[in-house]
């Protein structure tokens, strides 16, 4: 719920009102401001808990500490009780208030007691000190920039850009990474000088000085210890149930985003087990391309007798896409954003809170590539180089087409693991990238700028095994910067709060602390969850292999989006930017149009970037779409 904004080093209510005016969708139910000596804070509120009482900003007893807060603290009742026992006087009935009293007790370390998703700012009046804190996994967003001794922050970039004088300059260094990953991994953003506060970090601003430090990180256990699989699964199931239970806390109606996959079905199952009849929402496509999840979701909905709703994305997407890009705020070219936006819109007609199974793949090892890349590492250790080279050569002779073959070739490669990870997840290959970028562009880091980051992350975890390293990389990049950004922005776009129970930190700490073989073994993914939900979920759902959420991009580009795509990428202002070689862009468009080769992922990335640039760089984002 909510969106927050603020400036440290300036007292100016008009300024923060203007910032908050760009994110009314995050909090249409109310607004609040605080302007003190050397600080201005603002908030837009979406009321979920303690509807009448918890209007922000919220103060401590003697008005020396004030906070603006975006998120949800699921254990707030326990914390209120705990704080009251210590003599704190709480005036509201909501969760926001615990933040100021925890700060009184423990300073910024109070965050360690929070269970939930959050991004909040605390202003300590006496010490003239600002503390920004973002939740452990990066469920809620927080951006900041520094300019002239001021610290400017907000839940979305558009609020920061609303301040006159903040430069709107695309960071071309981030471009190469974006083209590979379809998003920009933190702490960078696509705009120079604007940063994301990384998940599990806090920022302290005092006397014009900024310090950022980590307060939490996911920690994986090393070694294949006797994995008491059944005990772990039972304990996991009990923990999940408790977690889903506390994620129900709300004074407004809640629903579940149901894809029919094992993660979201688990959320539905646990809700049913604690006696709730969930309202479920599923999105599907009109076309035949890809896998239609509607059937799978229907099966689960029938099994648990939910109040089920479906929506099919149709031809109206062209009209919606520029708006979706605006709401997405950062360029995150994940095509799944489009159906997510529509499903949230449908849900917003009847609920204000949505539970989702997001995070299950990263947490429980749901991506087959973990096992495959690990297998490739093993292969590389035992086979002589010439053998692999020959195998690769033979593959190359067959054809260079197709995802499967390119992945096989990645597996047989001799490149370091980080490069092969990027080859696997990447949107476009390196030769295409270098042809596409004009010589003046790129970040000068050779093949792609993401490799050093991935390498650094793998070194930080410092484990022998490939799998924990790969999972850690996803935890630090893909999860916060793509998955959770998409979930937050698309739900907030329609003023709905999304909650992700599988990413509760207690659940994450428990699962990360289990030996990896409990999660992935012999190419079987999500063993722990399958074991835990045995007998609870329908057998068919349990046995379903991992299905990526397939968006029918090719059909869209051939049909409803055809014109918009061409117009956007061949417009003179796109060509004149001088970032991409227009000849190569034209070639991609032609290949796609003639069906010679599937360039839809690459085109989608370019398409999204251009739409984003128009709204965020060419002009300051409009106050409200």
């Amino acid at each position, binding site marked *: 719920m909510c969106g927050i904004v603020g400036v440290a080093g300036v007292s100016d209510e008009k300024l923060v009102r203007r910032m908050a005016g760009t994110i009314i969708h995050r909090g249409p139910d109310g607004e609040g401001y605080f302007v003190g000596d050397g600080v201005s804070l603002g908030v837009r509120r979406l009321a979920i808990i303690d509807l009448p009482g918890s209007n922000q900003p919220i103060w401590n007893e003697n008005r020396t500490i004030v906070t603006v807060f975006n998120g949800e603290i699921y254990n707030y009742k326990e914390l209120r009780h705990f704080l009251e026992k210590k003599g704190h006087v709480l005036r509201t009935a909501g969760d926001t208030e615990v933040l100021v009293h925890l700060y009184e007790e423990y*300073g910024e*370390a109070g965050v360690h007691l929070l269970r939930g998703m959050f991004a909040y700012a605390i202003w300590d009046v006496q010490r003239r000190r600002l503390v920004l804190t973002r939740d452990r996994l990066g469920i809620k967003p927080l951006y900041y920039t520094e300019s002239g001794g001021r610290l400017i922050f907000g839940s979305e970039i558009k609020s920061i850009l609303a301040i006159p004088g903040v430069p709107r300059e695309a960071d071309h260094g981030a471009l190469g990474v974006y083209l590979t990953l379809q998003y920009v991994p933190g702490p960078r953003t696509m705009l120079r000088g604007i940063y994301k506060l990384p998940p599990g970090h806090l920022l302290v601003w005092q006397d014009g000085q900024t310090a950022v430090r*980590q*307060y*939490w990180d996911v920690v994986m256990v090393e*070694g294949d*210890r006797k994995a008491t699989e059944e*005990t772990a699964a*039972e304990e996991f199931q*009990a923990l999940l149930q408790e977690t889903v239970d506390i994620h129900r806390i709300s004074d407004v109606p809640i629903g579940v985003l149901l894809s029919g996959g094992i993660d979201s079905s688990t959320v539905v199952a646990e809700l049913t087990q604690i006696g709730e009849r969930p309202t479920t929402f599923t999105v599907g496509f009109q076309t035949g391309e890809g896998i239609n999840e509607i059937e799978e979701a229907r099966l689960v909905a029938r099994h648990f007798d939910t109040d089920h709703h479906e929506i099919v994305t149709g031809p109206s997407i062209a009209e919606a896409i520029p708006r979706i890009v605006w709401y997405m705020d950062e360029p995150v070219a994940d095509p799944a954003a489009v159906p997510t936006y529509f499903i949230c819109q449908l849900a917003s007609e009847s609920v204000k809170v949505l539970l989702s199974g997001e995070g299950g793949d990263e947490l429980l090892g749901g991506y087959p590539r973990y096992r495959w890349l690990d297998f490739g590492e093993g292969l590389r250790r035992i086979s002589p180089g010439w053998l692999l080279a020959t195998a690769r050569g033979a593959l190359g002779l067959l054809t260079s087409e197709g995802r499967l073959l390119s992945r096989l070739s990645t597996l047989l490669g001799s490149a370091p693991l980080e490069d092969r990870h990027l080859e696997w997840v990447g949107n476009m290959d390196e030769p295409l990238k270098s042809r596409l970028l004009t010589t003046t562009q790129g970040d000068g880091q050779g093949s792609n700028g993401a490799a050093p980051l991935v390498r650094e992350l793998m070194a930080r975890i410092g484990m022998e095994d490939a799998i924990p390293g790969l999972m850690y990389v996803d935890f630090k990049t893909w999860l916060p910067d793509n998955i959770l950004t998409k979930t937050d922005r698309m739900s907030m776009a329609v003023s709905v709060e999304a909650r992700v129970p599988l990413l509760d930190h207690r659940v994450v700490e428990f699962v990360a602390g289990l030996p990896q073989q409990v999660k992935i073994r012999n190419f079987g993914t999500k063993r722990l969850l399958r074991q835990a939900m045995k007998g609870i979920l329908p057998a068919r759902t349990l046995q379903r292999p991992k299905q990526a959420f397939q968006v029918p991009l090719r059909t869209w580009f051939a049909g409803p989006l055809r014109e918009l795509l061409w117009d956007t990428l061949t417009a003179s202002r796109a060509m004149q930017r001088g970032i991409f070689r227009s000849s190569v862009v034209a070639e991609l468009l032609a290949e796609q149009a003639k069906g010679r080769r599937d360039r839809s992922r690459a085109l989608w990335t370019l398409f999204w970037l251009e739409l984003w640039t128009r709204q965020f760089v060419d002009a300051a984002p409009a106050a409200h779409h």
Partner: protein
Amino acid sequence: MRLLLLTIDFPPARGGVQHLLSRVADGLAPDYELRVLTYHQPRDWEWDRARPYRVIRTPVFGIRSLDLSLLGLRALADIIRHRPKLIICGHVLLGPPCRLARWLFRIPYIAMAYAYEVRAPGMRRVAGMALRGARHVITISEFSRQAVMALDVPDKQVTVIRPGPVANGSVERGMSRADLPLNGRGRVLLSVSRLAERYKGHDMVIRALPLIRAKVPDACYIIVGDGWLRPYLERIAASIGVRDAVIFAGEVSESELEAWYRRCDVFILASRESAVGGGSEGYGIVFIEANLHGKPVIGGRSGGIPDAVLDGATGLLVNPLDAADITDAVLRLLTDSSLAARLGAEGRRRAQEELSWGNYVARFDGIIKSSVTTSRGPAGT
């Protein structure tokens, strides 16, 4: 009277059960004709030779079923030759030879039950058989007694005798505080256990440290013991920014252990119960040892810990999954010195008086005597 103690755990190996059984054996030796049958260990002769009773050892090949069978067969041979009046079954895994002896020669046995071996899901059959056949079951805590009774052992056949400390708490012996690898004069929290089980709760104490240090900035946490979880715990400490405040002392000598007990301000082991029949603390001798050194203790409210830590009298019990509760208890003891002193003093008194090994052996002896004299039909199977 002839007695046979049959055990898989015995010194010179270190450990709570080993120590307990050797205290029992040493205590009973003057009054009984005692023989002990156990596994061979490196340099065991040094230990055995100083005993006032006979220790017989069978070879170990590292294959559990084979080793157990050998020990069982050797036990039967010994029983046939020496015809003890009573057998003490030191572990439920040795139930089969004990039952056989009861059936063949009508020799009764007393069984020991500790914790995990009677609670583990895979052990129910074996443990149930061994314990139901015993004339009496001696266990270490109320928690373990409940676990034994859950195996259909009648209530009146189960007795809790709470063990005393392993370390002896003498002030003269051991290293001096100055020798400890600890810079400065911080306030010290201490845990002592192997780092092989997650339920011991070191992770939660580490996670409470940032909160504790927000109020007592020089607080640090000493972890004595080693095991495969150590790198994991080190990473947790680093991930939340308290790596410098956690000292992993590793395996230490007895004299260093004594020195740590003396040096610490608070002893803590926030063990939890795994939600569904997994590991848990059966009792917690380390709490008694810390008490013996006059230290207040904090224990997780789980398993048999409430038998070892008397909440508000010798220490504090906390919810082991609640960082707030752990933080609160630690801060109370670090900031309220009279409370800490009172709990420590009462803990020492209890360790020295109620939980002395003299008391333990006397009660054990009483159960032996009543088990031999009560004649009763074969117990149910």
